[in-house]
């Protein structure tokens, strides 16, 4: 598919010292004005939704209601037995889905936080949607472990509340770490997302005509008025949250991987899991961001804001993380072979050749082989290819968790208890339901909230620089300062 890209002109000539500046692609094409950006992004929220939105929203909402609502009702009223879990595979699809969703939920915060810290300005076009995706994915993920427990009405036992029984939780359990990690992650992500949105909500508030809109957006915009004394604190808060989220995002999937890595189960008990899980999460998360943003970009005509450069950058990250994940897969196999531990070796042999070989093949081909297409620029530029690879990665990442959990549990230590695991109808129903719920929430997000960070996108425009117009007027800002500033910009952007 051809993409009409208007080659950016060289930046406006600047006086002062000549610096060896490489020509850069612009993040906003066609020299759009501030107002154009505002109009375009707020338009998504303010204009009537395209038919396609309704066509997507209604079925998704129904699937979510039936799948999640109905599925959970049946589950809680009847027992965990409605799922396919057995005394052998005590964890089955539900935990696969949990890890899958929590993995997807990593790209958002990662884009917002890590790319912010590394001054990757191209993140501004996608970070809002990616953060929303994080929140919704974590919501979907949270359903599984919460309802997965046999007595969900007793789940408050997990909270360290003083009680007349004087009994406490086991702080050595990775599952308790998980409870803390996932809830912290959700909370901090939500704060991050919301704070980032406040100026944009103010934009919508100021453009709103209806009373309800004025009221609701007004409430959530907190009375934001763009004062620089506010911006000053706000920028600092944003930086702090980014700095907090970066280790957090790495810790969350590490903790999830501890669920497996700290066990004694052959095929789980491996120290490579934390980095491997984190890489996998970034990998899967970026694929999901692309899967959602490419269609949204078309539907809402955001091509000038989410440019081919963005897509190219993300494809490169997918290639990198996909290769890390591939390395981890191979390293697992090597360690199983090299470790001379019979049961470990058998576990991996059974993964490769056992009854679930197809899952392993699906995982390998989707996660390791398909992203290799991104070595070619042509493939990164062809949106059909990008979309195809991303779909593959989404599927492949689900299978990765399936391989880890189900394959391992159904062929563990003692052959006497080996049994194949089959998901039940309710398993499938709930998983499809969470996909529906995820899409429903995302569509609602597109409908009601600014899907691109308006303020930050404006900031990436060149004329946002107060020194854009001329430098001579700033006698107190020496040439060195400008050079340093430019260098700083370059450093961040040269990578991208």
């Amino acid at each position, binding site marked *: 598919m051809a993409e009409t890209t208007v080659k950016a002109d060289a930046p406006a000539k600047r006086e002062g010292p000549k610096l060896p500046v490489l020509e850069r692609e612009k993040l906003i094409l066609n020299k759009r004005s501030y107002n154009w950006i505002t109009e375009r992004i707020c338009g998504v929220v303010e204009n009537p939704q395209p038919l396609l939105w309704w066509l997507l929203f209604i079925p998704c909402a129904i699937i979510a209601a039936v799948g999640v609502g109905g599925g959970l009702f049946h589950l809680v009223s009847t027992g965990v037995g409605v799922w396919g879990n057995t005394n052998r595979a005590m964890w089955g699809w539900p935990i696969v889905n949990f890890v899958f969703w929590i993995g997807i939920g990593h790209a958002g915060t990662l884009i917002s936080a890590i790319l912010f810290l590394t001054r990757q300005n191209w993140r501004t076009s996608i970070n809002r949607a990616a953060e929303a995706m994080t929140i919704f994915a974590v919501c979907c993920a949270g359903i599984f472990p919460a309802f997965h427990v046999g007595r969900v009405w007793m789940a408050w036992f997990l909270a360290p509340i003083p009680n007349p029984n004087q009994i406490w939780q086991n702080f050595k359990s990775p599952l308790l770490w998980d409870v803390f990690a996932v809830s912290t992650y959700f909370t901090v992500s939500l704060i991050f997302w919301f704070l980032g949105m406040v100026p944009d909500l103010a934009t919508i508030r100021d453009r709103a005509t209806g009373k309800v809109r004025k009221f609701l957006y007004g409430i959530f915009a907190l009375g934001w008025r763009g004062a620089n004394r506010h911006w000053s604190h706000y920028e600092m808060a944003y930086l702090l949250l980014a700095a907090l989220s970066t280790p957090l995002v790495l810790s969350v999937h590490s903790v999830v991987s501890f669920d497996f890595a700290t066990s004694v189960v052959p095929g789980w008990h491996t120290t490579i899991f934390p980095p491997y899980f984190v890489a996998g999460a970034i990998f899967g998360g970026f694929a999901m961001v692309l899967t959602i943003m490419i269609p949204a970009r078309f539907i809402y005509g955001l091509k000038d804001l989410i440019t081919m450069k963005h897509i190219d950058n993300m494809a490169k990250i997918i290639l990198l993380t996909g290769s890390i994940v591939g390395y981890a897969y191979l390293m697992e196999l090597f360690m199983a072979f090299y470790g001379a531990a019979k049961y470990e070796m058998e576990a991996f042999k059974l993964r490769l050749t056992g009854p679930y070989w197809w899952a392993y093949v699906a995982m390998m081909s989707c996660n390791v082989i398909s992203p290799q297409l991104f070595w070619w620029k042509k493939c990164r530029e062809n949106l059909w290819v990008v979309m195809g690879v991303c779909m593959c990665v989404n599927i492949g990442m689900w299978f990765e968790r399936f391989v880890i959990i189900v394959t391992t549990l159904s062929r563990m230590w003692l052959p*006497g208890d080996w049994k194949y695991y089959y998901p039940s109808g309710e398993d499938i129903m709930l998983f499809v339901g969470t996909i529906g719920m995820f899409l429903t929430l995302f569509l609602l997000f597109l409908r009601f909230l600014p899907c691109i960070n308006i303020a930050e996108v404006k900031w990436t425009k060149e004329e946002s620089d107060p020194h854009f117009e001329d430098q001579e007027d700033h006698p107190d800002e020496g040439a060195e300062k400008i050079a340093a500033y430019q260098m700083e910009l370059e450093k961040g952007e040269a990578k991208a």
Partner: protein
Amino acid sequence: MSKRVWNHPEVPAEERDVLVWRSAGELDGSAMFREHLEREFPEKNGELTEEERELSRRSFVKLMGASSALAGLGLASCRRPESYIVPYTNAPEWVIPGKPLYYASARPTAAGGVPLLVTTFEGRPTLVAPNEDHPDSSGTDAFTQASILDLYDPDRSKDFLKAGKVTSKADFEAALKESAAKPGKIGFVFGEDDSPTRARLVGELKKKFPGAKAYRYEALEANRAEAALGKGNRLVVDFSKADRILSLDCDFLGLDETGESKGYFERRQGGSHADGKLYSKEVAPEEMNRHYQVEAAYTLTGGMADHRLRVTAGRVAQIASAIAAELGVSVPASGELSEKEKLWVAECAKDLQAAGGNAVVLAGKRQSAGLHQLAAAINAKLGSACAKIVATGRGEFADFAELVADMEAGALQTLVFATPANPVFDAPADVQFKELLAKVPTTIHLGLRADHTARACSWHVPAAHYLESWGDTRTASGSHLLVQPMILPLHGGVGELELLSAFLGDGSLQLGDEQTPSAGYDAVRNTVQLQPAAWTEALKNGYIDASYAEAEATGATDQVAASLQTPTPSKDALEVIFAADASVWDGRFINNSWLQEAPDPISKLTWDNVAYVSPKTAEALGIEPLTTELEPETKIFGKDVKNAPRPEQGEGEKAKAPMIEVKLGEASLKIPVLVSFGQADDTIVLPLGYGQGRDDGRSGGVVYDKAAPVVGQVGLNTGFDAYRLRTSQTDYLASGATISMVFDRYPVALTQEHHAMYGRALAREISTDDIDVHHHHKSYEEQLKGVAKQGMDSHMPPNTSIYKPNDTEGKPLISDDRHQWAMAIDLNVCTGCNSCLVACQAENNIPVVGKEQVAKGREMHWIRMDRYYAVHKDGDQDNPEMIPQPVACVQCEMAPCETVCPVNATVHTEEGLNAMAYNRCIGTRYCANNCPYKARRFNFFDYNKRNPLVPHNLNRGPWGKKQVGDGKHLQRNPNVSVRMRGVMEKCTYCVQRLEEAKIKQKQIQRKKALGVDSTKMTVTAKDLRIPVDSVKVACQSACASNAITFGNLLDRKDAAVVRAKDSKRNYDLLNYIGTLPRTSYLARVKNPNKELTSIDKNVGRATIHIH
């Protein structure tokens, strides 16, 4: 919840016909005791609707001693709901609420009565255990363990039936009076057990009614041995003296018993139980017995054998005759033997010869009379001192053929069935028993189930269970056991002796109540003729010293030649072997859900029976799809990889066995088929007793009629009726069967679907003979040393922990200085019989989950009875070694399950137990994932509340059928929590028994203190330690072979378990992970004949060839 349910039911005193009856001594005794008797069961049989029965039964549970009843559950208010304590009005003697009372009793069986000790709580029997005071006591089998559930079976017969229609007890009593007055020619059909009182009453009946005749019949007791031994005689083997045992298709440890097997297991231990102490020495090869087995399909006995010759059942006689010929018995020439067989026969004969009087030959009951004669001749020739022929009391009774003849001749006017068998269903098909029955004008059926025979007879009388009635029986060696009731009949059942007494009297039934003992009691007392004191003592012991008289063998060999004339089977004319089923026996346990759910010890099939064929036969017959390999391999890049694929018949809930049609003569049967390893080619094994009622449209069972149910909810739609292929001539073995494939598949629920250890040294085995291990020649001693170093353990360095398991003061965490519990399981004697599994189920309130859930892999048995087949790479691939391995929670000191529980629901006790607090568990199931032994079970559904037997019922949740108030709940052990859904459970070494014992020890300390000044008394850890080996866990006490040892590690060498763990055979399962399990295993030792190792390469190497 409505309030009325909880009200104390009020029933007029004279109508209280079900009551607790605790000990006969007291019943017999003073009037004061009668006053103390307390009503337990308020229901009035026959006058309550089904619903009311349920309700009042529920009330019953709530009325136990100090248990409470809730009223007006204050859900709306926040107030605490008011509950009541309802004490006895007149407290019965001895009953301490919450404390069990133990009574000696016995379960009569054809193989000989089983002396039992029954646990009762406030009058409810909850568990049976072997009566260890009895000299012949050798554990219990799974049937005995499960028989208690029959007592509480909700589908038990409760009503008197007249021509299949419900009638009142009064009606029957009237008819009985008439019958007893003028019975015409009367016949009685009894079971094959030997009851002295019954024999005496029959004698009296014969006097009263000239021409009265007594028969005995049980479907699987053909009494072929009597042709060789004389009528009513049986062979009792003293295995403790038997150095060499040749079993000719005799499953003497499993389904056909020949006396007490205790001696066999002791000899298997090769003197390690010397000086009356278990495990005082290592197994000494010269003290072990050597067991030769000739059989067609694997039996538990075959699994124990040192040398197992796999031949078709028809050829067993040929092998026997060849051996006889070698030993110099003059026999007709046998057929051709293969080279291998010749060697086997020659060496076996030599070995038997050498042992002389200490050798014994046993013939299986399914085998022909000729073989029994051969076996008797060989025994005689050897001068076997361990085989003793005894005369039982059964000789007086006519056999089934005679009954059939009499019925056909119309010689009977009244026929009373008191046999546990179900002849309409299980008699040979050619007899047409139902039609015959119509020729007898009055037929009275006394039975626990309103089964096919009950429906076909003119009268059916609900029988009293053996735990509800008086009686007596004899053990295999003739010891006189007393059967005493634990409780008044729950449903007003009639005991066999009461019925006989009624015929002896004027026909009125004297059933007994809290005031008067039943006629059965009088009958037994009159038989034993003991003074009150001696009688009380006998009841306390449960037996009276007695033994069978020795008898002379007939010495006949007239049928030997005939037995050799069996056609050689081929794939077009298969040999059919009808086998007793390990779950339902001959069909009588069809309604017993514990047995139905207990996996078949060999095939691991639950809830059904299938046909078994050998892998080669399956291939030859083209039965697809069936996995015929032990360790299936796939070619990957040209290399064979053992990759444990899904079996071709499917795995888990999708396991579906192919259906075949077996044609035998005129009859045919559509039945699913599975492969059975180690089975002789061209044979097909058909377990009997299943298919008693099907309404799912499948043709392989009796059509179930809802209006006249012959089988309860448990047995409905289970299995296929192989009886229909069976004729009087071919009652055990038939030949000339053909198989055709049916385009259909049948879901099967298997608990184990992979049969090999896949190169993992799990169940370990060594040999007393020298063996090459990885090109090293290893003697027995070397192998013994190597037990703990098999497999991974050979090259793993010891685990070291960077943390010391200490508390804040630096003391070890598992710190108790009184008790440290541990267990050892000796694979050398474990046959894999499921007895422990069922005992555990009874003791620990383990629910039944139904076929669907078992198929999914959600069975709840805390003990998983793994069974592995193993072949050596040079060994006979068709005749693998079979080795069972019971796996329950092994109570790891470093338990991986504990650390992962987020809510501290499973933590260690100071005594080394891996405790499980059900009420704290929220069901994350992480613990079960992290359990290397997979010993944890999860309550996926409310198995105790919802009925798992109704198809798909569990998935309906709150809308499903409930089973609250079901009689089964009366069996529950009040000292163990009944788990709800969403909770993990597992073995905790019967912690309720341990706590009970510890508390008892504390009580003793106080009693000591009361004499003196308690402040001056010093109590030490030693005082508080329970006496050595005084506590037995449920599985341990049930075990017939003493394979399970349990005790306190701090007792040091005094404790059997410590000695067991000091044995060189001791090893920890999955030792290298460093879990430090408290349950360890002792490797199996095989004692092969050196001369035969060239052909039996598998023996003793089940694991040893594994790297």
